[in-house]
Protein backbone atom coordinates (compact mmCIF):
# COMPACT_ATOMS: atom_id res chain seq x y z
CA UNK A 1 0.00 0.00 0.00
CA UNK A 2 1.32 3.38 -0.98
CA UNK A 3 2.14 5.60 1.92
CA UNK A 4 0.26 8.89 2.12
CA UNK A 5 2.31 11.99 1.45
CA UNK A 6 3.15 13.86 4.69
CA UNK A 7 0.87 16.87 5.21
CA UNK A 8 3.66 19.39 5.39
CA UNK A 9 5.09 18.29 2.04
CA UNK A 10 1.77 18.59 0.29
CA UNK A 11 1.70 21.24 -2.38
CA UNK A 12 -1.42 22.76 -3.90
CA UNK A 13 -1.51 21.68 -7.55
CA UNK A 14 -3.50 23.34 -10.31
CA UNK A 15 -5.77 20.33 -10.40
CA UNK A 16 -6.37 20.47 -6.64
CA UNK A 17 -7.03 24.19 -6.81
CA UNK A 18 -9.55 23.72 -9.64
CA UNK A 19 -11.27 21.05 -7.61
CA UNK A 20 -11.44 23.41 -4.64
CA UNK A 21 -12.94 26.17 -6.80
CA UNK A 22 -15.57 23.83 -8.21
CA UNK A 23 -16.44 22.49 -4.77
CA UNK A 24 -16.82 25.94 -3.27
CA UNK A 25 -19.01 26.98 -6.19
CA UNK A 26 -21.58 24.31 -5.30
CA UNK A 27 -22.76 23.93 -8.86
CA UNK A 28 -22.77 27.63 -9.72
CA UNK A 29 -19.94 28.87 -11.92
CA UNK A 30 -18.77 31.85 -9.91
CA UNK A 31 -15.52 32.33 -11.82
CA UNK A 32 -13.49 32.10 -8.63
CA UNK A 33 -15.63 34.65 -6.79
CA UNK A 34 -16.78 32.13 -4.21
CA UNK A 35 -13.19 31.22 -3.42
CA UNK A 36 -12.23 34.88 -3.00
CA UNK A 37 -15.26 35.46 -0.80
CA UNK A 38 -14.41 32.49 1.40
CA UNK A 39 -10.83 33.66 1.68
CA UNK A 40 -12.03 37.14 2.66
CA UNK A 41 -14.23 35.66 5.36
CA UNK A 42 -11.44 33.52 6.71
CA UNK A 43 -9.00 36.43 6.77
CA UNK A 44 -11.57 38.47 8.68
CA UNK A 45 -12.16 35.57 11.05
CA UNK A 46 -8.47 35.22 11.87
CA UNK A 47 -8.21 38.97 12.20
CA UNK A 48 -11.01 39.01 14.74
CA UNK A 49 -9.20 36.27 16.61
CA UNK A 50 -6.22 38.64 16.91
CA UNK A 51 -3.96 36.45 14.77
CA UNK A 52 -0.90 38.26 13.54
CA UNK A 53 -0.87 36.56 10.13
CA UNK A 54 -4.53 36.28 9.07
CA UNK A 55 -3.77 35.98 5.35
CA UNK A 56 -1.36 33.10 5.87
CA UNK A 57 -3.78 31.30 8.15
CA UNK A 58 -6.62 31.71 5.64
CA UNK A 59 -4.42 30.27 2.89
CA UNK A 60 -3.37 27.43 5.17
CA UNK A 61 -7.05 26.66 5.84
CA UNK A 62 -7.94 26.59 2.17
CA UNK A 63 -4.87 24.48 1.37
CA UNK A 64 -5.95 21.92 3.92
CA UNK A 65 -9.46 21.85 2.51
CA UNK A 66 -8.03 21.38 -1.00
CA UNK A 67 -5.85 18.52 0.24
CA UNK A 68 -8.80 16.83 1.90
CA UNK A 69 -10.70 17.17 -1.36
CA UNK A 70 -7.93 15.46 -3.37
CA UNK A 71 -7.88 12.71 -0.75
CA UNK A 72 -11.63 12.43 -1.27
CA UNK A 73 -12.04 12.72 2.47
CA UNK A 74 -14.96 15.12 2.34
CA UNK A 75 -18.53 13.92 2.09
CA UNK A 76 -20.42 14.99 -1.01
CA UNK A 77 -23.16 16.46 1.19
CA UNK A 78 -20.78 18.51 3.26
CA UNK A 79 -21.50 22.23 3.31
CA UNK A 80 -18.32 23.89 1.95
CA UNK A 81 -18.56 26.98 4.14
CA UNK A 82 -19.18 24.94 7.26
CA UNK A 83 -16.31 22.62 6.46
CA UNK A 84 -13.98 25.55 5.87
CA UNK A 85 -14.97 26.97 9.24
CA UNK A 86 -14.25 23.68 11.03
CA UNK A 87 -10.80 23.51 9.42
CA UNK A 88 -10.21 27.18 10.25
CA UNK A 89 -10.92 26.49 13.92
CA UNK A 90 -8.28 23.77 13.94
CA UNK A 91 -5.83 26.05 12.21
CA UNK A 92 -6.57 28.72 14.80
CA UNK A 93 -6.08 26.32 17.73
CA UNK A 94 -2.75 25.21 16.24
CA UNK A 95 -1.79 28.83 15.84
CA UNK A 96 -2.63 29.51 19.48
CA UNK A 97 -0.49 26.58 20.60
CA UNK A 98 2.36 27.85 18.43
CA UNK A 99 1.93 31.36 19.80
CA UNK A 100 2.04 30.15 23.39
CA UNK A 101 5.48 28.78 22.71
CA UNK A 102 6.56 32.21 21.76
CA UNK A 103 5.79 34.64 24.55
CA UNK A 104 7.12 37.54 22.55
CA UNK A 105 4.63 36.93 19.77
CA UNK A 106 1.84 36.63 22.28
CA UNK A 107 2.77 39.91 23.89
CA UNK A 108 2.70 41.49 20.51
CA UNK A 109 -0.79 40.10 19.98
CA UNK A 110 -1.96 41.59 23.23
CA UNK A 111 -0.59 44.98 22.42
CA UNK A 112 -3.36 46.95 20.78
CA UNK A 113 -0.99 49.73 19.77
CA UNK A 114 1.31 47.49 17.80
CA UNK A 115 2.33 48.37 14.31
CA UNK A 116 4.39 50.95 12.60
CA UNK A 117 4.24 54.43 14.05
CA UNK A 118 4.06 56.95 11.28
CA UNK A 119 5.52 60.39 11.78
CA UNK A 120 3.09 63.34 11.57
CA UNK A 121 4.19 64.69 8.20
CA UNK A 122 4.27 61.25 6.64
CA UNK A 123 0.85 60.55 8.03
CA UNK A 124 -0.55 63.70 6.50
CA UNK A 125 1.06 62.85 3.18
CA UNK A 126 -0.41 59.36 3.41
CA UNK A 127 -3.86 60.76 4.11
CA UNK A 128 -3.56 63.11 1.15
CA UNK A 129 -2.43 60.22 -1.01
CA UNK A 130 -5.36 58.12 0.19
CA UNK A 131 -7.81 60.89 -0.56
CA UNK A 132 -6.32 61.20 -4.05
CA UNK A 133 -6.69 57.46 -4.52
CA UNK A 134 -10.25 57.60 -3.26
CA UNK A 135 -11.14 60.29 -5.78
CA UNK A 136 -9.48 58.29 -8.54
CA UNK A 137 -11.32 55.12 -7.54
CA UNK A 138 -14.62 56.98 -7.25
CA UNK A 139 -14.08 58.26 -10.77
CA UNK A 140 -13.60 54.69 -11.95
CA UNK A 141 -16.95 53.59 -10.52
CA UNK A 142 -20.09 53.53 -12.61
CA UNK A 143 -21.93 56.86 -12.17
CA UNK A 144 -24.85 55.29 -10.33
CA UNK A 145 -22.58 53.40 -7.94
CA UNK A 146 -20.61 56.57 -7.33
CA UNK A 147 -23.79 58.44 -6.50
CA UNK A 148 -24.86 55.68 -4.15
CA UNK A 149 -21.59 55.48 -2.24
CA UNK A 150 -21.18 59.23 -1.92
CA UNK A 151 -24.72 59.86 -0.81
CA UNK A 152 -25.01 56.80 1.38
CA UNK A 153 -22.10 57.67 3.60
CA UNK A 154 -22.73 61.39 3.72
CA UNK A 155 -24.15 63.39 6.55
CA UNK A 156 -24.25 63.16 10.29
CA UNK A 157 -26.66 61.18 12.37
CA UNK A 158 -30.22 61.96 11.39
CA UNK A 159 -29.42 63.79 8.18
CA UNK A 160 -27.50 60.70 7.09
CA UNK A 161 -30.44 58.45 7.84
CA UNK A 162 -32.78 60.77 5.97
CA UNK A 163 -30.35 60.98 3.11
CA UNK A 164 -30.27 57.20 2.89
CA UNK A 165 -33.99 56.93 3.03
CA UNK A 166 -34.41 59.45 0.22
CA UNK A 167 -31.74 57.71 -1.81
CA UNK A 168 -33.44 54.33 -1.41
CA UNK A 169 -36.72 55.90 -2.43
CA UNK A 170 -35.25 57.54 -5.50
CA UNK A 171 -33.68 54.25 -6.59
CA UNK A 172 -36.80 52.23 -5.89
CA UNK A 173 -34.96 50.05 -3.37
CA UNK A 174 -35.72 49.09 0.18
CA UNK A 175 -33.35 50.66 2.67
CA UNK A 176 -32.02 47.22 3.48
CA UNK A 177 -31.28 46.43 -0.17
CA UNK A 178 -29.61 49.82 -0.49
CA UNK A 179 -27.48 49.12 2.60
CA UNK A 180 -26.27 45.83 1.13
CA UNK A 181 -25.52 47.46 -2.20
CA UNK A 182 -23.69 50.37 -0.59
CA UNK A 183 -21.65 47.97 1.50
CA UNK A 184 -20.59 46.02 -1.60
CA UNK A 185 -19.62 49.18 -3.41
CA UNK A 186 -17.65 50.29 -0.36
CA UNK A 187 -15.78 46.96 -0.26
CA UNK A 188 -14.94 47.36 -3.92
CA UNK A 189 -13.87 50.95 -3.42
CA UNK A 190 -11.79 50.05 -0.41
CA UNK A 191 -9.82 47.41 -2.28
CA UNK A 192 -9.36 49.79 -5.22
CA UNK A 193 -7.93 52.40 -2.83
CA UNK A 194 -5.72 49.77 -1.22
CA UNK A 195 -4.32 48.78 -4.62
CA UNK A 196 -3.87 52.41 -5.59
CA UNK A 197 -1.90 53.12 -2.42
CA UNK A 198 0.33 50.11 -3.03
CA UNK A 199 1.10 51.22 -6.58
Amino acid sequence: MQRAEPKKNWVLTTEAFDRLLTWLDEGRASNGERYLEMRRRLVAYFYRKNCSTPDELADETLNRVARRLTEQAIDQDENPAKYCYIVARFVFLEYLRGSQKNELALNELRNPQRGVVIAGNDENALKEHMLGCLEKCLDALEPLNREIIVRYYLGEERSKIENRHALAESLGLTTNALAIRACRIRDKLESCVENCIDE
Partner: protein
Amino acid sequence: MKENADDFRVITDYLLKALPEEELEQLDELSVTDDEFVAKLRMVENELIDSYVRGNLTEKRLEQFKAAYLYGADRRQKVDFAHALQAFGKKHPLPLLEKVQSGKSINPQPEMTAHRWFELWEVFRTPRLAQFGFAMAALVLLIVGGLLAIENIRHRRQLSQERVSNSAAAQQTHEAQRDAERQPESNSTREKELASNSNANEKEQHSESKTPVGPHSISSGARRNVSISSFVLTPQMRGPGEIKIVTLPAHTSVVAIKVQLEPNQYSSYQVVLLNESNRSLWRSNTINMREKTDYKNLSISFPAALLKQGTHVLQVYGIDRGQSELLGDYPFRVMK
Protein backbone atom coordinates in the same frame (compact mmCIF):
# COMPACT_ATOMS: atom_id res chain seq x y z
CA MET B 1 -28.98 32.60 18.21
CA LYS B 2 -29.22 33.57 14.59
CA GLU B 3 -32.11 35.89 15.33
CA ASN B 4 -30.05 37.59 17.99
CA ALA B 5 -27.18 37.76 15.58
CA ASP B 6 -29.33 39.95 13.33
CA ASP B 7 -29.32 42.57 15.97
CA PHE B 8 -27.08 45.56 15.37
CA ARG B 9 -26.12 45.74 19.01
CA VAL B 10 -25.15 42.09 19.18
CA ILE B 11 -23.00 42.37 16.08
CA THR B 12 -21.37 45.48 17.50
CA ASP B 13 -20.70 43.60 20.74
CA TYR B 14 -19.30 40.75 18.69
CA LEU B 15 -16.93 43.06 16.82
CA LEU B 16 -15.87 44.69 20.07
CA LYS B 17 -15.50 41.35 21.84
CA ALA B 18 -18.09 42.31 24.41
CA LEU B 19 -19.98 39.00 24.25
CA PRO B 20 -19.58 35.83 26.31
CA GLU B 21 -17.14 33.33 24.78
CA GLU B 22 -19.88 30.90 23.81
CA GLU B 23 -21.77 33.50 21.82
CA LEU B 24 -18.56 34.73 20.23
CA GLU B 25 -17.93 31.25 18.90
CA GLN B 26 -21.43 30.93 17.52
CA LEU B 27 -21.07 34.20 15.70
CA ASP B 28 -17.59 33.20 14.54
CA GLU B 29 -19.19 30.31 12.75
CA LEU B 30 -21.89 32.48 11.20
CA SER B 31 -19.21 34.94 10.08
CA VAL B 32 -17.85 32.24 7.78
CA THR B 33 -20.91 30.18 6.91
CA ASP B 34 -23.90 32.51 6.73
CA ASP B 35 -24.14 34.88 3.75
CA GLU B 36 -26.79 37.05 5.34
CA PHE B 37 -24.90 37.42 8.57
CA VAL B 38 -21.69 38.22 6.71
CA ALA B 39 -23.45 41.01 4.81
CA LYS B 40 -24.78 42.48 8.04
CA LEU B 41 -21.49 42.09 9.79
CA ARG B 42 -19.76 44.13 7.10
CA MET B 43 -22.42 46.81 7.26
CA VAL B 44 -22.20 47.10 11.01
CA GLU B 45 -18.42 47.15 10.87
CA ASN B 46 -18.50 50.02 8.38
CA GLU B 47 -20.99 51.94 10.51
CA LEU B 48 -18.90 51.33 13.60
CA ILE B 49 -15.74 52.64 11.96
CA ASP B 50 -17.60 55.64 10.54
CA SER B 51 -18.99 56.42 13.98
CA TYR B 52 -15.52 56.27 15.43
CA VAL B 53 -14.14 58.56 12.74
CA ARG B 54 -16.97 61.06 13.26
CA GLY B 55 -16.55 60.95 17.02
CA ASN B 56 -20.06 59.60 17.50
CA LEU B 57 -19.25 56.63 19.72
CA THR B 58 -20.35 56.67 23.31
CA GLU B 59 -17.58 56.69 25.88
CA LYS B 60 -18.04 53.01 26.61
CA ARG B 61 -18.07 52.05 22.96
CA LEU B 62 -15.02 54.17 22.30
CA GLU B 63 -13.08 52.37 25.00
CA GLN B 64 -14.16 49.00 23.64
CA PHE B 65 -13.32 50.08 20.13
CA LYS B 66 -9.82 51.18 21.05
CA ALA B 67 -9.13 48.11 23.14
CA ALA B 68 -10.64 45.41 20.99
CA TYR B 69 -10.82 46.68 17.47
CA LEU B 70 -8.28 49.34 16.70
CA TYR B 71 -5.17 47.35 16.02
CA GLY B 72 -3.29 45.95 13.06
CA ALA B 73 -2.50 47.42 9.66
CA ASP B 74 -5.69 46.16 8.04
CA ARG B 75 -7.97 47.84 10.54
CA ARG B 76 -5.97 51.03 10.61
CA GLN B 77 -6.38 51.09 6.87
CA LYS B 78 -10.14 50.71 7.25
CA VAL B 79 -10.15 53.64 9.64
CA ASP B 80 -7.99 55.69 7.26
CA PHE B 81 -10.38 54.83 4.46
CA ALA B 82 -13.33 56.02 6.54
CA HIS B 83 -11.43 59.25 7.25
CA ALA B 84 -10.83 59.71 3.53
CA LEU B 85 -14.48 59.04 2.75
CA GLN B 86 -15.52 61.60 5.31
CA ALA B 87 -13.02 64.13 3.97
CA PHE B 88 -14.35 63.54 0.47
CA GLY B 89 -17.90 64.11 1.71
CA LYS B 90 -16.89 67.42 3.23
CA LYS B 91 -15.06 68.43 0.07
CA HIS B 92 -17.98 67.49 -2.19
CA PRO B 93 -21.13 68.08 -0.17
CA LEU B 94 -23.47 68.60 -3.14
CA PRO B 95 -25.32 65.27 -3.14
CA LEU B 96 -26.36 65.65 0.49
CA LEU B 97 -27.48 69.22 -0.04
CA GLU B 98 -29.44 68.24 -3.12
CA LYS B 99 -31.28 65.64 -1.13
CA VAL B 100 -32.11 67.96 1.70
CA GLN B 101 -33.13 70.59 -0.79
CA SER B 102 -35.49 68.26 -2.62
CA GLY B 103 -37.50 67.87 0.53
CA LYS B 104 -37.90 64.16 -0.10
CA SER B 105 -35.82 63.33 2.87
CA ILE B 106 -37.89 65.30 5.34
CA ASN B 107 -40.00 63.35 7.78
CA PRO B 108 -39.09 59.79 6.84
CA GLN B 109 -40.09 58.51 10.28
CA PRO B 110 -42.94 56.12 9.40
CA GLU B 111 -40.88 54.12 6.91
CA MET B 112 -37.79 54.39 9.03
CA THR B 113 -39.45 52.56 11.86
CA ALA B 114 -40.08 49.71 9.49
CA HIS B 115 -36.39 49.36 8.88
CA ARG B 116 -34.63 47.49 11.62
CA TRP B 117 -31.14 48.56 10.67
CA PHE B 118 -31.74 52.17 11.27
CA GLU B 119 -33.70 51.52 14.41
CA LEU B 120 -30.72 49.63 15.65
CA TRP B 121 -28.61 52.65 14.90
CA GLU B 122 -30.05 54.03 18.14
CA VAL B 123 -27.29 52.15 19.93
CA PHE B 124 -24.91 54.93 18.98
CA ARG B 125 -27.21 57.80 19.75
CA THR B 126 -27.34 59.37 23.11
CA PRO B 127 -30.00 62.07 23.67
CA ARG B 128 -27.29 64.72 23.54
CA LEU B 129 -26.02 63.41 20.24
CA ALA B 130 -29.55 63.29 18.87
CA GLN B 131 -30.03 66.93 19.82
CA PHE B 132 -26.75 67.74 18.19
CA GLY B 133 -27.87 65.83 15.09
CA PHE B 134 -31.10 67.81 14.88
CA ALA B 135 -29.21 71.03 15.38
CA MET B 136 -26.79 70.11 12.59
CA ALA B 137 -29.62 69.11 10.26
CA ALA B 138 -31.37 72.42 10.97
CA LEU B 139 -28.10 74.25 10.34
CA VAL B 140 -27.60 72.43 7.04
CA LEU B 141 -31.15 73.29 5.98
CA LEU B 142 -30.58 76.89 6.94
CA ILE B 143 -27.34 77.06 4.96
CA VAL B 144 -28.88 75.33 1.95
CA GLY B 145 -31.88 77.63 2.08
CA GLY B 146 -29.60 80.65 2.29
CA LEU B 147 -27.45 79.49 -0.60
CA LEU B 148 -30.49 78.78 -2.74
CA ALA B 149 -31.96 82.17 -1.91
CA ILE B 150 -28.69 83.87 -2.85
CA GLU B 151 -28.47 81.86 -6.05
CA ASN B 152 -32.07 82.68 -6.87
CA ILE B 153 -31.51 86.39 -6.24
CA ARG B 154 -28.35 86.30 -8.34
CA HIS B 155 -30.18 84.77 -11.30
CA ARG B 156 -33.13 87.08 -10.92
CA ARG B 157 -30.75 90.03 -10.82
CA GLN B 158 -29.07 88.82 -13.99
CA LEU B 159 -32.41 88.45 -15.67
CA SER B 160 -33.58 91.88 -14.61
CA GLN B 161 -30.30 93.46 -15.75
CA GLU B 162 -30.80 91.91 -19.13
CA ARG B 163 -34.35 93.16 -19.20
CA VAL B 164 -33.18 96.67 -18.52
CA SER B 165 -30.40 96.51 -21.07
CA ASN B 166 -32.62 95.31 -23.84
CA SER B 167 -36.33 96.01 -23.84
CA ALA B 168 -36.91 93.77 -26.81
CA ALA B 169 -35.36 90.86 -25.03
CA ALA B 170 -37.33 91.73 -21.91
CA GLN B 171 -40.54 91.64 -23.88
CA GLN B 172 -39.55 88.29 -25.30
CA THR B 173 -38.82 86.95 -21.84
CA HIS B 174 -42.10 88.27 -20.53
CA GLU B 175 -44.05 86.55 -23.27
CA ALA B 176 -42.12 83.42 -22.71
CA GLN B 177 -42.96 83.52 -19.02
CA ARG B 178 -46.62 83.71 -19.86
CA ASP B 179 -46.09 80.68 -22.10
CA ALA B 180 -44.52 78.94 -19.18
CA GLU B 181 -47.76 79.16 -17.25
CA ARG B 182 -49.26 76.88 -19.82
CA GLN B 183 -46.21 74.62 -19.67
CA PRO B 184 -45.93 71.34 -17.79
CA GLU B 185 -45.23 71.60 -14.12
CA SER B 186 -41.59 71.80 -13.14
CA ASN B 187 -40.48 71.91 -9.53
CA SER B 188 -38.13 74.82 -9.95
CA THR B 189 -39.18 78.41 -10.57
CA ARG B 190 -35.84 79.18 -12.12
CA GLU B 191 -36.20 76.20 -14.41
CA LYS B 192 -39.60 77.51 -15.49
CA GLU B 193 -38.17 80.87 -16.39
CA LEU B 194 -35.33 79.38 -18.32
CA ALA B 195 -37.52 76.77 -19.90
CA SER B 196 -39.79 79.46 -21.14
CA ASN B 197 -36.86 81.29 -22.60
CA SER B 198 -35.84 78.27 -24.57
CA ASN B 199 -39.47 77.76 -25.53
CA ALA B 200 -39.57 81.22 -27.01
CA ASN B 201 -36.66 80.33 -29.21
CA GLU B 202 -37.88 76.90 -30.14
CA LYS B 203 -39.04 77.78 -33.62
CA GLU B 204 -35.77 79.44 -34.37
CA GLN B 205 -33.83 76.47 -33.06
CA HIS B 206 -35.79 73.99 -35.11
CA SER B 207 -35.12 75.89 -38.26
CA GLU B 208 -31.40 75.62 -37.64
CA SER B 209 -30.04 72.11 -37.67
CA LYS B 210 -26.60 72.47 -39.12
CA THR B 211 -23.52 71.29 -37.22
CA PRO B 212 -21.74 72.83 -35.44
CA VAL B 213 -24.79 74.31 -33.83
CA GLY B 214 -24.38 77.30 -31.61
CA PRO B 215 -26.49 77.87 -28.55
CA HIS B 216 -29.45 80.13 -28.71
CA SER B 217 -29.44 82.85 -26.20
CA ILE B 218 -32.59 84.66 -25.15
CA SER B 219 -31.39 87.62 -27.17
CA SER B 220 -29.32 85.95 -29.82
CA GLY B 221 -28.24 88.58 -32.25
CA ALA B 222 -30.10 91.28 -30.37
CA ARG B 223 -27.45 92.16 -27.82
CA ARG B 224 -23.89 91.38 -26.87
CA ASN B 225 -24.21 90.71 -23.16
CA VAL B 226 -25.66 87.20 -23.33
CA SER B 227 -25.90 85.34 -20.02
CA ILE B 228 -28.32 82.54 -20.81
CA SER B 229 -27.67 80.14 -23.64
CA SER B 230 -30.23 77.63 -24.71
CA PHE B 231 -30.35 74.79 -27.19
CA VAL B 232 -32.38 71.76 -28.06
CA LEU B 233 -31.30 68.13 -27.92
CA THR B 234 -33.33 65.77 -30.02
CA PRO B 235 -33.32 61.98 -30.12
CA GLN B 236 -32.64 62.14 -33.85
CA MET B 237 -29.35 63.90 -33.19
CA ARG B 238 -27.99 61.02 -31.15
CA GLY B 239 -25.56 58.32 -32.28
CA PRO B 240 -21.93 58.23 -33.41
CA GLY B 241 -21.02 60.97 -35.80
CA GLU B 242 -24.13 62.96 -35.01
CA ILE B 243 -23.04 64.48 -31.76
CA LYS B 244 -24.35 67.99 -31.34
CA ILE B 245 -21.74 70.70 -31.04
CA VAL B 246 -22.62 73.60 -28.82
CA THR B 247 -20.62 76.81 -28.73
CA LEU B 248 -20.95 78.65 -25.45
CA PRO B 249 -20.01 82.32 -25.33
CA ALA B 250 -17.50 83.07 -22.59
CA HIS B 251 -19.95 85.17 -20.59
CA THR B 252 -22.70 82.54 -20.52
CA SER B 253 -23.81 82.02 -16.96
CA VAL B 254 -26.76 79.69 -17.34
CA VAL B 255 -27.43 77.00 -19.90
CA ALA B 256 -31.02 76.11 -20.68
CA ILE B 257 -31.66 72.94 -22.63
CA LYS B 258 -34.82 71.56 -24.09
CA VAL B 259 -34.61 67.79 -24.34
CA GLN B 260 -37.01 66.23 -26.79
CA LEU B 261 -38.09 62.82 -25.60
CA GLU B 262 -39.08 59.82 -27.60
CA PRO B 263 -42.60 58.56 -26.88
CA ASN B 264 -42.78 56.98 -23.45
CA GLN B 265 -45.29 56.23 -20.73
CA TYR B 266 -43.67 58.23 -17.95
CA SER B 267 -44.97 61.46 -16.49
CA SER B 268 -42.03 62.12 -14.14
CA TYR B 269 -38.43 62.47 -15.17
CA GLN B 270 -34.99 63.19 -13.85
CA VAL B 271 -32.06 64.41 -15.91
CA VAL B 272 -28.41 63.80 -15.04
CA LEU B 273 -25.51 65.67 -16.60
CA LEU B 274 -22.31 63.64 -16.99
CA ASN B 275 -18.88 64.76 -18.06
CA GLU B 276 -16.44 62.95 -20.35
CA SER B 277 -15.36 60.64 -17.53
CA ASN B 278 -18.97 59.71 -16.84
CA ARG B 279 -18.86 61.71 -13.65
CA SER B 280 -22.16 63.14 -12.56
CA LEU B 281 -21.97 66.95 -12.60
CA TRP B 282 -25.54 67.87 -11.95
CA ARG B 283 -28.88 66.22 -11.36
CA SER B 284 -32.28 67.82 -11.85
CA ASN B 285 -35.09 67.56 -9.41
CA THR B 286 -37.97 65.35 -10.44
CA ILE B 287 -39.72 66.99 -13.37
CA ASN B 288 -43.42 66.26 -13.56
CA MET B 289 -45.24 66.52 -16.89
CA ARG B 290 -48.98 66.87 -17.01
CA GLU B 291 -49.39 66.76 -20.76
CA LYS B 292 -50.35 63.42 -22.23
CA THR B 293 -48.90 63.94 -25.69
CA ASP B 294 -46.60 61.38 -27.24
CA TYR B 295 -43.84 63.89 -27.79
CA LYS B 296 -42.63 65.60 -24.65
CA ASN B 297 -39.99 68.19 -24.09
CA LEU B 298 -38.07 68.54 -20.87
CA SER B 299 -36.75 71.98 -20.08
CA ILE B 300 -33.79 72.08 -17.79
CA SER B 301 -31.19 74.60 -16.81
CA PHE B 302 -27.98 74.62 -14.85
CA PRO B 303 -24.95 76.86 -14.31
CA ALA B 304 -22.81 77.11 -17.43
CA ALA B 305 -19.70 76.75 -15.30
CA LEU B 306 -20.45 73.05 -15.03
CA LEU B 307 -19.70 72.61 -18.71
CA LYS B 308 -16.08 72.37 -19.74
CA GLN B 309 -14.80 72.09 -23.27
CA GLY B 310 -15.45 68.53 -24.40
CA THR B 311 -18.16 65.93 -24.58
CA HIS B 312 -20.98 65.74 -22.06
CA VAL B 313 -24.02 63.53 -21.84
CA LEU B 314 -27.48 64.22 -20.52
CA GLN B 315 -29.14 61.09 -19.27
CA VAL B 316 -32.91 61.14 -19.00
CA TYR B 317 -34.58 58.81 -16.53
CA GLY B 318 -38.27 58.05 -16.38
CA ILE B 319 -39.56 57.74 -12.84
CA ASP B 320 -42.60 55.76 -11.80
CA ARG B 321 -43.52 54.83 -8.23
CA GLY B 322 -40.00 55.37 -6.99
CA GLN B 323 -38.40 53.25 -9.73
CA SER B 324 -36.30 54.83 -12.43
CA GLU B 325 -35.47 53.72 -15.95
CA LEU B 326 -32.87 55.19 -18.26
CA LEU B 327 -34.76 56.47 -21.29
CA GLY B 328 -31.89 57.82 -23.28
CA ASP B 329 -28.50 59.46 -23.56
CA TYR B 330 -28.16 62.86 -25.20
CA PRO B 331 -24.50 63.55 -25.87
CA PHE B 332 -23.25 66.96 -26.93
CA ARG B 333 -19.87 68.56 -27.37
CA VAL B 334 -19.12 71.93 -25.84
CA MET B 335 -16.89 74.43 -27.59
CA LYS B 336 -15.86 77.52 -25.67
